[in-house]
């Protein structure tokens, strides 16, 4: 579009150069300066808005806020149900000077979608925290939230890296990451069918979205998604209790990778 508008201007410029008229020339120069400034500004904006946020999502009581605190300070903190988001800059503890903005979103059902809406555009990566101990009971809720995140149009477009962190591994009853992956795949497979069959929404847009998760005809697999998905095990509390450190080397390594 810029080239198109420049063409007649170039013609006029050439004409003017042959017969220089200072007023018109100065006007043209000014316009050129403005155009160049606009281009530079848009370029810089695009650079700056390169997504630098890592979102911590998950159900209520999954351990997001504690994970957030541990990553940033390494200390154990008591937590309550979050009502609003918290964000802070996280410096990856490697030689690489990578910094990301960690954003901890509330997991409560009435808030999660609102906050996701607000921050999804800025997400470079998503950490989906799962409570490995209560997973068996909550598998349907976990799958539903994950499904809502995955079919979101912005998420599909940007395809941020997805890490599913199976938290609370310090408890003996915790399920392993492999088991969680299998169960989630099965559940999401079923959800694809039921969600797309749900009654259409009031204003006409379907609840499941026109997006189809994975490939039709084949069973759902995390490898069918446009983004990279990994599963890690971690424990925010740490095996040594509150005084010790948290066990999340895999998580930190992954964060370093995407920073």
């Amino acid at each position, binding site marked *: 579009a810029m080239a198109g508008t420049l063409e007649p201007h170039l013609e006029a410029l050439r004409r003017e150069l042959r017969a220089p008229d200072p007023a018109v020339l100065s006007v043209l120069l000014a316009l050129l300066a403005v155009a160049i400034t606009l281009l530079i500004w848009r370029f810089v904006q695009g650079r700056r808005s390169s997504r630098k946020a890592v979102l911590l999502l998950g159900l209520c009581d999954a351990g997001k806020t504690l994970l957030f605190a541990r990553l940033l*300070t390494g200390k154990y903190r008591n937590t309550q149900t979050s009502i609003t988001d918290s964000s802070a800059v996280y410096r990856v503890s490697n030689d690489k000077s990578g910094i990301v903005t960690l954003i901890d979103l509330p997991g409560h059902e009435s808030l999660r979608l609102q906050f996701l809406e607000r921050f999804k555009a800025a997400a470079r990566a998503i950490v989906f925290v799962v409570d490995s101990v209560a997973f068996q009971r909550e598998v349907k809720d976990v799958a539903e939230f994950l499904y809502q995140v995955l079919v979101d149009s912005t998420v599909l477009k940007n395809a941020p890296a997805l890490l599913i962190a199976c938290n609370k591994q310090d408890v003996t009853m915790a399920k392993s990451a492999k088991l969680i992956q299998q169960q989630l795949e099965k559940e999401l497979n079923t959800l694809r069918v039921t969600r797309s069959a749900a009654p259409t929404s009031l*204003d006409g847009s379907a609840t499941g979205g026109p997006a189809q998760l994975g490939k039709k005809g084949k069973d759902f697999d995390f490898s069918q998604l446009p983004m990279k998905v990994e599963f890690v095990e971690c424990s925010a509390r740490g095996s040594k209790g509150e005084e010790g450190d948290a066990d999340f080397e895999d998580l930190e390594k992954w964060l370093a990778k995407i920073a």
Partner: protein
Amino acid sequence: MLDFFTIFSKGGLVLWCFQGVRGPAAAATAPVNALIRSVLLQERGGNNSFTHEALTLKYKLDNQFELVFVVGFQKILTLTYVDKLIDDVHKEFRDKYRNEFQQKGTLGLLNGTFDFKDDFMRLLRDAEESSKVRAPTVMKTFEQSLKSQKTVKCMIETRGEKPKEKVKNKKNKGSKKEGTEAVAAPGKASTGDKQSSAAGDREELTKDEILQKNREEFFKRHMKAGEKSSKSPKPEAQKEKGKKPRVWDLGNSNAKVLDYSNSTTNGSVEACPVEEFDPDIAVGDRNREPGRLYDLEYESDDEAEEEKVIQNPSKPSVKKGGLGGMFGMLKGLVGSKSLTREDMDPVLEKMKDHLIAKNVAAEIAVQLCESVAKKLEGKVMGTFTTVTSTVKQALQEALVQILQPQRRVDVLRDVMDAQRHRRPYVVTFCGVNGVGKSTNLAKISFWLIENGFSVLIAACDTFRAGAVEQLRTHTRRLNALHPPESHGGRTMVQLYEKGYGKDAAGIAMEAISYARNQGFDVVLVDTAGRMQDNAPLMTALAKLIAVNAPDLVLFVGEALVGNEAVDQLVKFNKALADHSMAQTPRLIDGIVLTKFDTIDDKVGAAISMTYITSKPIVFVGTGQTYCDLRSLNAKAVVAALMKA
């Protein structure tokens, strides 16, 4: 006396905690989580106290630095100093750690150590002392009372004055039966004196004469005192000499005497005066065609109304004009102003009226506005944001929050689960009369059939005429649309009915066992409509639900309902809770909002219903054909609600 006191950020980090009487720190987490989930997140933050099991929790929000202060104490104690304590702690904490909050943000919260214990103990001691300051009032000693200052002499009666005193005292005693101490004391004194004086008399006269004298005095006294009252008994005494039959004024007389109607008016032409009959007034419009029914005339006043509406908001801003008002407006726009209650009140009033105009129940609109006010009080506004826009934004967020389901809304998923366990998935529809239960039941069964599940419809409406026939017609239509051939020989929908007049709970139970035997996937139970005030019918419904334990209890409500929605849902839930034998009674699990196509954008009923029950709206009915079944879109509804 306090159980605990915690200060935590809205992001979830506990900044400081005080354990009063209880032991481990974990004891404070559960009640506070319950407080957050039931009060703050459900926008019930109007009043600042909450009860959870044996504890009462009082809380205060700091919206400027995003903190929450919660204190918990035993429910049976009534501590008067708690409110003041919270306010003091809030002020002190905020002032002490202002720097951390303002400059360092979240990292400040994470890294900061909040050593607040000494200040808190001091404040607690001050608060406790201030509540004990007023000692109970000490009773006056005898020396201080008035009575001790009266001399004995004034209480002695002399002989001459005796009868008067006696009469007076008797009168006093008679009239002031409650008797103040002042009367009783001289009374007692006088009786004491009387006895002493009587004793003195007896020394002079003989006993008989004394008796005679006393009797005369007694009668004299009574005559004097009873003079006034004796007049009235006299005519009565005279009357009661012989018993006369009572003559009632209106009794005994004939019915004819009582008939005051002019019996000649009925049917008789002359008795009724011919009024001036003006045909024009009676018939009205002369120019109408005889026998034709005209349409309702609808004048489009929209443009005129819009102008009025636009003018009204501009008027108050013009009134506030003048130089000072101008600067104030600019200052409000640019600076970092913190919101106060006075700023928000006019805006909230307007929003409340707007919500009520959009058919939100009045008490819910009030509670919502209160909750939003609490959430915004003290918040610092950004630049170029007005009070109105901040309040509107907060209200919009609150409304979306309310409409988000608190539990999963996926009927198909649950049906699949039940299918795997080889038992039918039972859904019960309840509601008041005429909301659309049977129609929406048919729509939902159509949707289920389309997804390949077989449905058994249980006709438990055994009261309304034609209810069973209505369901049979629907069944026939659905079977015609989805014949057994196209579904592998299975009849997709079948009706289970036992006629009229039978017990609904029994029919439901038989229907469920029939479905289990025949392998139906879903059982849809249709109940009779009933008013929420009708106690026996509510009991019957509660019995049906308690006995059959359905998987999903859906309350069907129409979108046209206004303030009634609150009453209906509260009473239905209460009836279900009261008549259930279980520990955790089955309450309403979801809401079906019907007749949504009849309201344009007055969608407030959705808010009222979800606010009262905190259960999601599972389906929305938008018409009478089988395809008119939708699911709720929270954002669209809120947008329609907030639209001017």
